[in-house]
């Protein structure tokens, strides 16, 4: 094996071509496909729409990254141009601070589309007894600090070890809840809807909201860290699998995972309401949240297909009561609300905060 001296020339040549290539691509940076970022909760729905859109129109299939709601907003609000995403998904509404940042970076006209609702389920293995919990039970079982059961306006470290400690009517099984980590939007929503919902059933805590909002939030949103709440990562499938193996454990996951695995896991009734399609849709199941996506008006006409994507997503065949998104576990909005957001999307009406 003999290596000729020309290897130097070749290497230099190759590096030069590489660099030229990189600069060349950067100069021509324009996209002919829609780029979408954002929440992992909206991801399973947005991907179905994107795939369908790619198959039924002449446009390329949009590409969708699951970056989390916050991460998505950051990328989305970074500016206008092909290097920035066209659409971001969010499992909560855009925050005022994010909206301002968008404005400051030139992303002035944002089209807001509410997609529907997503239920958060507290469930366990079908082999175990189904639970019936109130939000107060959930707060007393999972909060870091709770009011002293002996009475008075004093806070103590959560002493409860079994569900029976929380509420006499519950079984005497050790509290063991698998749930998402603090970075997750599902966790935020669960804290806000389930824990805070139970937290404010204490009158003196509720009045605290007006006097000391930070302390109120800290008390109502902080989940215990003594090992009874187990952070199981962002992968809901993993939680489902662990619940199958351990009938004593409970888990927190999105409704679509209950829907797909209803043969092995069951959802706990919260405040007497079972997590079902209908109960989430009519709002009687308390732990559900709206999900959204946001599109840049400035990119309409620049990236081909945005208008058509908005149209495809807001089509009754997609997000309607009988649409294919409902099959994937999305809880549709009432018809009138769907109408409103569809007209807004079609006319590209920008939102205001």
């Amino acid at each position: 094996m003999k290596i000729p001296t020309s290897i130097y020339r070749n290497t230099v040549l190759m590096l030069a071509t590489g660099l030229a290539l990189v600069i060349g691509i950067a100069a021509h940076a324009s996209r002919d496909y829609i780029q979408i970022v954002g929440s992992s909760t909206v991801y399973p729905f947005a991907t179905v729409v994107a795939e369908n859109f790619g198959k039924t129109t002449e446009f390329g299939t949009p590409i969708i990254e699951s970056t989390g709601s916050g991460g998505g907003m950051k990328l989305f609000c970074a500016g206008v141009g092909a290097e920035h995403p066209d659409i971001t998904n969010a499992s909560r509404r855009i925050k005022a601070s994010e909206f301002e940042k968008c404005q400051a970076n030139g992303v002035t006209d944002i089209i807001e589309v509410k997609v529907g609702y997503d239920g958060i389920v507290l469930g366990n293995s079908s082999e175990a007894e189904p639970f019936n919990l109130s939000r107060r039970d959930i707060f007393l079982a999972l909060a870091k600090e709770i009011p002293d059961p002996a009475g008075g306006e004093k806070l103590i470290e959560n002493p409860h070890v079994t569900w029976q400690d929380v509420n006499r009517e519950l079984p005497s099984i050790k509290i063991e809840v698998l749930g998402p980590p603090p970075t997750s939007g599902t966790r935020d929503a669960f804290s806000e809807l389930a824990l805070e919902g139970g937290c404010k059933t204490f009158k003196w805590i509720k009045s605290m909201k007006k006097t000391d909002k930070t302390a109120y939030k800290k008390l109502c949103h902080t989940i215990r860290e003594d090992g009874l709440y187990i952070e199981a990562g962002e992968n809901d499938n993993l939680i489902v699998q662990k619940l199958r193996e351990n009938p004593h454990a409970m888990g927190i996951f999105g409704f679509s995972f209950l829907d797909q695995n209803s043969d092995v896991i069951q959802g706990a009734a919260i405040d007497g309401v079972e997590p079902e399609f209908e109960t989430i849709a009519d709002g009687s199941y308390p732990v559900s949240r709206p999900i959204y996506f946001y599109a840049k008006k400035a990119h309409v006409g620049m990236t081909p297909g945005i208008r058509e994507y908005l149209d495809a997503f807001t089509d009754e065949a997609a997000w309607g009561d009988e649409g294919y998104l409902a099959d994937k576990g999305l809880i549709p909005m009432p018809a009138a609300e769907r109408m409103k957001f569809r007209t807004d999307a079609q006319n590209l009406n920008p939102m205001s905060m």
Partner: protein
Amino acid sequence: MSQVEIIQRGIRRRYVVEGMFRACGLSALICGVVFLAFLLITTFVKGYTALQQTYIGLDITPMEEDFDGAVTEETLRRADYGALIKRSLREAFPDVTRRKEKKTLYRLVSSGAQHELRQKLVQNPGLVGQTTTFWVLADDEVDMYMKGNVNVSIPEKKRRFKDHAIELTKRLVQQDRIQLRFNTPFFSRGDSREPEQAGIKGAAMGSLFAILVTMLLSFPVGIAAAIYLQEFAKTNRFTDFIEVNINNLAAVPSIIFGLLGLAIFINLFGLPRSIPLVGGMVLALMTLPTIIISSRAALAAVPPSIREAALGIGASPVQTVLHHVLPLAMPGMMTGAIIGLAQAMGETAPLLMIGMVAFIVDIPGSPLDPGTALPVQIYLWADSPERAFVERTSAAIIILLLFLSLVNGLIVVLRKKFEKRW
């Protein structure tokens, strides 16, 4: 006590120690083998079923009126193939009349079937007007049922696949209209949110392009750096500093390289997100330290006598290295490079930062089209709620493992072929 007695007394203890040491080593080995076997067996058992896919045979008669009266390319593209499939299902099950039951019936067929049908008719418009049996993909739940992954003993209310769907599927089996066939879509398609339509090709092509870019960048640069550092650079503070840094970089968590790639290639150079070119460049940065270190070790292993002999008969230092040292060090360098590339093949973390962990349906045709990679595909499928993705995930793992063992096999062959002994 004589010397012999002392030795004899200790001899038993020495045997015991030796035996224990060997037992430790053996049990460590067995432990490793058991874990490996467990991993391989569970993956294989879960994944091999993905080699087959359920198809439903439908007698479809496309009529001219389905194409607005005239069969042209335009009407062939636009026609409602979903309606054609539904009509054929209704004809096959004339007794299914109630709305809800019909819905169950329509759902037996994959939502992608209409696109398949469109493709077939666009390619072959002569099929209009005659009845042909088309084999279309069945829905993932039918597929799971046919493969025995639906537990029918539990109450219907808790099952997604309802009794009526089971009954209809059984009737399809009786009519010989259901078949398990080799799963070509899995090897020829990109990602999909419908398990029965999801394929690995998009991710495989993405991986291939990224690895090609990585190879083209990291191999020449790494080897050039190693040769310079090992053969030409003077040992001083500066080169020591560089050496320490290279060794450090080899141990840096891979996600850091992703952040670096995001900052340089995407934010500074303005390259698009999610393209295998950027992925390959990031992976090249990650594999460079590995290649440099192993290449330097390979160069250092070439005996000085070779260099001295070359210099002695009048070769210049460059000639010495290129004509004599490099050929001898090449097998070792190749091994290092391939190990680095194999490692890069299995990375997801750096790709996360540059947008390659994404839902991408279209199969990339060049390193400039958006694409994912094999390990990313595994990660995304493992995170999907649909049950049928379990077998796909395992099948994708098997493919990645096969690919890696192929690469490792290549290393062994290359080493055997070029190895020199002194």
